[in-house]
């Protein structure tokens, strides 16, 4: 009898804390940037594992975010002074991702509560951090950052593009444009019920230059003098080549 109790206790202890859990799959676990890289897309799919103890309060939602490496950025605003446009105020954004995509299984207000958004920094405006902004109306600067990067295809929000089947299987496809930079792309999947996050899964998708791209990049960083001389040698050779070719044509 005592043994049975112990076994039961061990079983309870070994059980996952969450009643509903994410199981994830990716179509590719890294992205290679080659010389002819024209962008790529990653298929993110998975399932929701249940242990039967879950309580159903509110609808199920899935939110997926993919974020490029974060770097500090200065946003400047132009202003008209004495009839000419000059750079006036500037706001330093502490960490802005080079790429950011959010995909949801339904309207944002239904799948994620504002307070949960703040806690997990899910939507674009929450993912960009700008503490210590001294200029009045600094929100307009972060808005401008989002607008400019959205126009460049780097920031995007896809509402309702995560397919959620039978409240169990989900999948979405995230497009990576051709102007993405190298780095570790942080991918997060949130499972929500009634707008409250009940499980979170994180994984990293490395985006790397390969082949000649990688070789040239490394050389420019590690052997700068050699790289500079190589650039000049190519320039001189090309200049001479064109001149010689045209001279030969004239004869």
């Amino acid at each position, binding site marked *: 009898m005592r043994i049975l109790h112990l076994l039961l206790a061990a079983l309870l202890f070994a059980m996952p804390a969450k009643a509903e859990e994410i199981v994830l799959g990716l179509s590719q676990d890294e992205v290679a940037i080659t010389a002819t890289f024209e962008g790529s897309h990653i298929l993110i799919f998975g399932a929701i594992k249940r242990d039967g103890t879950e309580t159903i309060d509110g609808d199920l939602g899935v939110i997926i975010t993919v974020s490029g490496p974060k770097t500090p*950025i200065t946003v400047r605003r132009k202003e008209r002074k004495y009839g000419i*446009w000059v750079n006036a105020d500037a706001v330093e954004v502490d960490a802005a991702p080079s790429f950011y995509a959010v995909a949801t299984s339904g309207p944002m207000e239904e799948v994620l509560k504002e307070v949960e958004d703040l806690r997990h920094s899910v939507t674009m405006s929450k993912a960009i951090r700008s503490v210590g902004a001294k200029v009045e109306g600094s929100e307009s600067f972060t808005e*401008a950052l989002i607008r400019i990067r959205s126009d460049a295809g780097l920031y995007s929000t896809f509402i309702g593009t995560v397919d959620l089947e039978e409240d169990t299987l989900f999948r979405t496809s995230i497009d990576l444009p*051709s*102007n993405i930079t190298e780095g570790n792309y942080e991918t997060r999947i949130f499972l929500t019920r009634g707008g409250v996050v009940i499980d979170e899964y994180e994984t990293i998708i490395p985006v790397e230059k390969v082949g000649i791209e990688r070789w*040239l990049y490394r050389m*420019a960083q590690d052997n700068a003098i050699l*790289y500079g001389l190589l650039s000049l040698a190519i*320039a001189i050779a090309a200049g*001479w080549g064109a001149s010689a070719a045209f001279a030969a044509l004239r004869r």
Partner: protein
Amino acid sequence: MLIYLPIAEVSVNAFLLLGLGGIVGVLSGMFGVGGGFLMTPLLFFIGIPPAVAVATEANQIVASSFSGVLAHLRRKTVDIKMGLVLQAGGLMGSGLGILVFNYLKALGQVDLLVKIFYVVFLGAIGSLMFVESINTLRHSSKGRTPAKRRKHNWVHNLPFKMKFRVSGLYISVIPPLLVGMAVGVLAAIMGVGGGFIMVPAMIYLLGMPTKVVVGTSLFQIIFVTAFTTMLHATTNHTVDIALALLLLIGGVIGAQIGTRIGVKLRAEQLRILLAIMVLAVCVKLSFDLLLTPSELFVLGAAGGH
């Protein structure tokens, strides 16, 4: 055909770059300018980061000027001696220019000062050149011999005279040194090669024949831009060799064509076209300052100016 640039970290159309390089190369061969002032905004426009655009373009200009100089050397329209004197002045000038630039930067609003300076400067040079060339052209078309530009002024009474055979000048080395230096200062402050300031200066201040000016200007641009390329490559690592290669293939071919067009034109015609180009850049820059921009915000690397 899209190519991913390893340093710029963007994908661009290879044929577009070949074409851009070609157009700028033609101008370079025709007028003896590097074409950086034209290429920079074009590269910004297709999405190349500014730092990479400026550095890479210097490398491309090395190629197109070298190509152009070889074509001019064959026609014996390069005054190497004059080029070297201008170069010596230019090196001193860039050193001085960097000091001035840092001083202005400490004062703040350096970009604005540079732009206003630029607009005034280009406007003045362009207009003067345009009027002068039109007058010369009108006189000669009426059948009269063109009024010879003043060949003897105070400049010719200075010491340290030197013979510049190709230019047909026997003048003191002081004026070319000063001209080279002035252009060097301006080039360092404005971040351009200075070809389109050098060319009018050689024609009007030194009295060099227009045909020789183009080749000589290209000759000294090679050294300036080669130096700039090395500087950017070693300090900022922003020279994109793939971008440069695409641009310079177009550039070297363009420079050969430009040189051929240039020698077919009369000196006055060449000067009018150059004046129009200088004025066009001036108008473009003043528009940037005066018109309401479509996007009021700009992004920049943190800490940079």
